[in-house]
């Protein structure tokens, strides 16, 4: 790693930041709840044991930030149906293990004879479709703002006619806005996504700041990035000066990646987006523009609008975990019926799912809860 980047793991600086965090928390002298909305933030926070370094009065929870987890069951069901009808489904590994509303995943569909193939990116999907021109391929396009631009690029470049896209991308800022507004969650500050915001820029978040006046910090993924982000939130609260602040200055800017935004604007429109187990959030669902309806799987296979209702396995609290209302250990199935090798819900299949992250290395998180 470049010299300066490795300084974001310096233990001396980290220790001093932690000391300062404790000082500010003592001065504020209140219970504080911060939330982030990014599975990768939860991964970093858990992996680096950040929660064990924080004072008891400062809580950091994982909000809806896992793209696989919030993909509607109806979309998964549609893909399974198409797989069983002989179409070739191209999907990410973790997405293939998420179960739809009938307890079946795409991997299960493969076991039942469906042709489901794993890809690492949309480029993979394009290459596979080009190699077998006589077959029909559908790429399950799930993700947030970080993942959508490459797809926009491939669409603009020109996709093979035997490939269509099942677009289920979500636009992050309105999701952060909903989290900020929610009186049910009642957060005191938000850690905004780092890489999604690299694409979108800080700009789209400003309106939510004007509306809610709650502290917002855009944060990176190294341990010092996260500690600094928390320190900045505390400083804003201590000084009673909430603002839209950027910790991740080496990547996130006010304008964002305008090249990527331009590609996205040419290819996608924004409409209602359903977050599985959470809610329909306006203006957060990407969909292909009308001029690309020929490569839109929803159009090509007349998928229609499916019911936004969702079912998780009986007794599971996936929805509450996704929203950040409860921790994984509070779900009765966690690490009993539902484990990384026998997942029952989407939060246990994805690398960005809170339950999987806690199951695999969440010991510190669990200790901090006791």
């Amino acid at each position, binding site marked *: *790693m*470049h010299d*300066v*980047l490795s*300084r*974001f793991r*310096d233990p*001396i*600086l980290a220790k*001093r*930041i932690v000391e*300062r965090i404790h000082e500010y928390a003592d001065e504020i002298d209140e219970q504080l709840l911060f939330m982030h909305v*990014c*599975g*990768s*933030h939860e*991964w970093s926070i858990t992996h680096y044991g950040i929660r064990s370094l924080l004072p008891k009065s400062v809580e950091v929870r994982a909000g809806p*930030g896992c*793209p696989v987890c919030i993909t509607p069951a109806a979309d998964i069901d549609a893909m399974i149906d198409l797989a069983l009808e002989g179409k070739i489904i191209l999907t990410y590994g973790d997405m293939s293990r998420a179960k739809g509303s009938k307890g079946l995943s795409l991997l299960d569909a493969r076991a039942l004879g469906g042709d489901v193939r794993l890809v*690492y*990116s949309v*480029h993979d999907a394009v290459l596979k479709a080009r190699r077998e021109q006589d077959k029909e391929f559908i790429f399950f396009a799930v*993700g*947030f703002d*970080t*993942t959508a*631009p*490459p797809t926009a*690029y491939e669409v603009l470049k020109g996709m093979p006619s035997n490939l269509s896209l099942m677009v289920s991308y979500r636009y992050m800022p309105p999701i952060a806005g909903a989290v900020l507004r929610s009186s049910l969650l009642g957060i005191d500050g938000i850690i905004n*996504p*780092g*890489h*999604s915001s*690299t*694409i979108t820029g800080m700009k789209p978040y400003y309106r939510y700041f004007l509306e809610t006046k709650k502290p917002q910090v855009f944060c990176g*993924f190294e341990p*010092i990035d996260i500690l*600094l982000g928390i320190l900045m939130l505390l400083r804003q609260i201590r000084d009673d000066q909430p603002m839209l602040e950027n*910790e991740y*200055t*080496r*990547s996130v800017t006010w304008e964002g*990646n*305008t*090249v*990527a935004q331009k*590609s996205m604007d040419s290819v996608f429109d924004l409409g209602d987006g359903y977050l599985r187990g959470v809610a329909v959030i306006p203006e957060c669902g990407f969909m292909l523009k009308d001029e690309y309806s020929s490569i839109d799987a929803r159009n090509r296979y007349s998928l229609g609008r499916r019911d936004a209702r969702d079912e998780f396995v009986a007794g599971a609290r996936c929805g509450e975990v996704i929203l950040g209302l409860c921790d994984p250990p509070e779900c009765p199935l966690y690490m009993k019926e539902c484990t990384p090798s026998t997942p029952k819900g989407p939060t246990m299949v994805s*690398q*960005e799912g809170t339950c999987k992250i806690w199951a695999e290395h969440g010991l510190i998180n669990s200790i901090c809860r006791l």
Partner: protein
Amino acid sequence: MCLAFPGMIISIDGDYAKVDFGAGVIRDDINIAELASSVKVGDYVLVHAGYAIQILDLEEAYNAIRYWEENLVWKCERCSIAGECPLGSIAVARKGIRLGEDGKSKSKSKRDGVI
């Protein structure tokens, strides 16, 4: 889906670049089309699933980390030797030299605390 890794561009060929991620990991199929056209060899970029999403501003990174080091490590109110030599206080801390109650180094050697 935020996992992205920093790497240095070694060579560019149209929309694609060869990127060195360190520790012997080099990939020559990284798509750089979604970056500003000013991207050049030697730039550090953030790569997500084979596509570069941003050119990392390392000068900004240096400024940011330097600001925090200055305010939290060098000018720390509890460390009385910080006032003498900012670089020296980091060197002392990194050598793990213990400080006594009066903030002075417990080591007898004159060379300690000097870079």
